[in-house]
C-alpha cells in the first residue's frame, strides 16, 4: 500500500497554499495564481497516473474490456 503518494499530495497542497499566502502578502497576485495553477497541474498528473493504474487493475479483475 504505497501511502507516500497520498502524503506527497497533501504536502504539496499545504506548501502551495502557504506560498500562495506569502506571495499575496508581497502583493504579487499573478505569481500566486500561476503557482497555484502549477501546483494543481503537478498533483493532477500524479493523480491521473494513479487513476490509470486503478483502471488497468479494475480491467484485469472484472474483465471489463
Amino acid at each position, binding site marked *: *500500500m*504505497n*501511502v507516500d*503518494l*497520498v502524503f506527497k*499530495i*497533501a504536502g*504539496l*497542497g*499545504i506548501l*502551495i*497554499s502557504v506560498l*500562495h*499566502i506569502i506571495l499575496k502578502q508581497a502583493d504579487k497576485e499573478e505569481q500566486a495564481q500561476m503557482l*497555484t495553477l502549477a*501546483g*494543481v497541474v503537478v*498533483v*493532477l498528473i*500524479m*493523480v491521473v497516473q*494513479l*487513476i490509470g*493504474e*486503478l483502471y488497468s*487493475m*479494475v480491467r*484485469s*479483475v*472484472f*474483465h*471489463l474490456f
Partner: protein
Amino acid sequence: MEVLQVVGIGLVITVLAVLIRGQRPEFAVLLALGFGILVFLLILDKVGVVISVFRDLSRKAQIEDFYLTTLLKVLGIAYVAEFGAQICRDAGEGAIASKIELAGKVLIVLLALPILTGILEAVVRLLP
C-alpha cells in the same frame, strides 16, 4: 490487518483534507481522490481472490461462463461508478455525480439485456 492501516491513514488524510480545504479546496478533492484510489487498489486484490473462488465454484456446477462474466462486469461498473460519483459529490458537484450514476445504470441495464432475453425465452419454452 489492513483495516487498521486503512482506518489510520484515512483519519490522517481526513484531517489534512480539512486543513487544505480552507485555503485551496481543489487540493482537498485531489487528496480524497488519491486516498480513494489507494484503498480501491488494496480492495481489488481481495476482490480478485473472491472472484477466483466464485469462478471455480461455477465451473464445478457447470454454470455457463457467460453469466459469471456478465455478473463481474456489472459489479465492476457499479464499483467504479459509485466511486466516481461519491468523489464528485464530496467536491460539491452533485449534478456531475448524478450524471455518472445515470451512465452507470444505463450500462448495467445494457449488460443485463442478454440474460433477460434468455430468461424470457426459457419461460416461454416452459409454457404449454
